């Protein structure tokens, strides 16, 4: 053990940064989007958030207790997981399903692999996918904003993503009537998961996190940039189509808040760039060629799984050393 913790001689620089502080910043960054979701989907959005956060915190407390580990509620990571999960759910989802999602995120994805910093995929994202696969009808009930979401018969509509998926080759003329205006897309006046609709609030939150240096801008820019570039090329240089693709679905939420999760993204800049581009490419492929209209969650999960290999590829050369030649390695093996 002591060999693994070789510390150089003093003096040491100590940072005031703590996990709790970082998580608090993330919560602050998520608040604008939360407010907008309450504006659009009413108290139901607030209730759903309360349920996911509360069940995430309780699940974290109980699982740590059962596993005889220290109490980690203070780092607020369970609160963040609950918040992000709520953002990924449709506002009409039965509350118990949301609680099941939180328990999956915390107990199965996070604590069973060792708790904060040990999970190999993003907990909230995985919980969303498990819910999506388990309850396909409830998870695809997208209500239009500004109505009582407690009502079981709330009016539902196709999300812009579903509409865009039917616009083959980026031709918007056939589906123009079914799409909201670009301003509405930016403000979030369209069907979708409760926290992902308002792109502008998410961008504000993301910028706040970058300014506070909580997240590095590489992953969001690589991710969104790749989606933009591929969509632009695919649609035959159609700017409008590209803009819809960028503002629709979970791209902003995923790129700023989920792909940048410390535990599940590569450490150095080169790795982050590969990670972001990979996320963007998979999102493009699923959105355009896949059976599902939206692919941000799957792209992040798939890249999460590849992170160890990306780390191997992008490992930095220690200062002052020479790169091992390929021929040499083969000789060694032989």
């Amino acid at each position, binding site marked *: 053990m002591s*060999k*693994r913790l070789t510390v150089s001689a003093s003096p040491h620089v100590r940072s005031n940064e703590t996990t709790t502080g970082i998580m608090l910043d993330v919560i602050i960054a998520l608040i604008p989007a939360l407010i907008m979701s309450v504006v659009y989907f009413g108290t139901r959005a607030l209730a759903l958030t309360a349920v996911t956060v509360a069940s995430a915190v309780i699940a974290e407390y109980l699982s740590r207790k059962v596993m005889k580990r220290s109490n980690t509620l203070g780092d607020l990571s369970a609160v963040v997981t609950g918040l992000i999960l709520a953002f990924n759910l449709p506002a009409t989802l*039965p509350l118990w*399903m949301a609680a*099941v999602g939180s328990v999956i995120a915390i107990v*199965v994805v996070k604590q069973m692999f060792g708790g904060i910093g040990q999970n190999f995929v993003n907990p909230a994202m995985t919980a969303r996918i*498990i819910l999506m*696969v*388990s*309850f*396909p009808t409830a998870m695809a009930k997208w209500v239009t904003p500004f109505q009582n979401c407690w009502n079981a018969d709330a009016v539902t509509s196709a999300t812009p993503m579903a509409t865009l998926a039917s616009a083959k080759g980026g031709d918007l003329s056939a589906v123009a009537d079914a799409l909201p205006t670009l301003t509405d897309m930016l403000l979030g006046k369209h069907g979708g998961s409760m926290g992902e609709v308002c792109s502008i609030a998410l961008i504000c939150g993301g910028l706040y996190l970058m300014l506070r240096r909580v997240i590095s801008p590489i992953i969001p820019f690589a991710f969104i940039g790749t989606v933009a570039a591929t969509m632009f090329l695919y649609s035959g240089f159609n700017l409008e189509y590209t803009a819809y693709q960028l503002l629709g679905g979970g791209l902003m939420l995923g790129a700023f808040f989920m792909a940048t999760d410390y535990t599940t993204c590569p450490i150095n800049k080169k790795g982050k760039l590969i990670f972001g581009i990979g996320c963007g490419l998979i999102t493009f492929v699923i959105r355009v060629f896949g059976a599902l209209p939206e692919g941000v969650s799957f792209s992040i999960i798939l890249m999460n799984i590849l992170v*160890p*290999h990306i*780390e*191997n590829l992008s*490992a930095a050369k220690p200062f002052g050393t020479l790169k091992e030649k390929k021929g040499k390695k083969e000789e060694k093996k032989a």
Partner: protein
Amino acid sequence: MAEKKSLGKEFSKGIIAENPVLRLVLGTCPTLATTTSVESAIGMGLAASIVLICSNIVISALRKVIPDKVRIPAYIVIIASFVTIVQMAVKAFLPALDEQLGVYLPLIVVNCIILGRAEAFASKNPVLASALDGLGMGVGFTAALFAMGAVREILGAGTFLGMSVPFLSENPMLIFILPPGGFFTYGLLMAAVNRMAEKKGKPRAELRGCEACPMAHNCALNSANKKEEVAE
């Protein structure tokens, strides 16, 4: 290997301590594929158990006759004949089960639990011990399949042996009858059985070594070991 064990132990070890699926991690393919319902899980478990017991007895009886060099083909011939008998019987009397199990029924021929027991136990032990070993392993296999089938059917389809379970039948968690749910249930059961066996003082069934781990390259534990090796 097992000379000092009593006959009772030859039987009971297959249930928890050396459960073929959950502790020895053999026969994972039929385990994952046939546990979408309790019915097909039990069917698979019983079919494989019958083949296992019969082939164990015959292989053990012939263990001194079979030349070492061709033992594997000889085992396969014996196992395949029993599988054919079982398959024909199932086709004749339980056609519905045959349809559910599909290709996994003839695939019992290459089930590694059966070949594994033949190689590791029946070829070295007398007939009675081999029969009991086969019975115990069969019970362990069937029990593991039943447990997995029950979890997956109740949560994933909201039914148990076709009877609907209140609440869950209206809101089944479909993922449990899909492959990811199968792996998930498998992992959790394995952890639970590991814990049960550990409490009895048996060592934990573990994948040793870092070879299989994608994180090995960056792993602190691994690099520390490497450094020590170099230093020595």
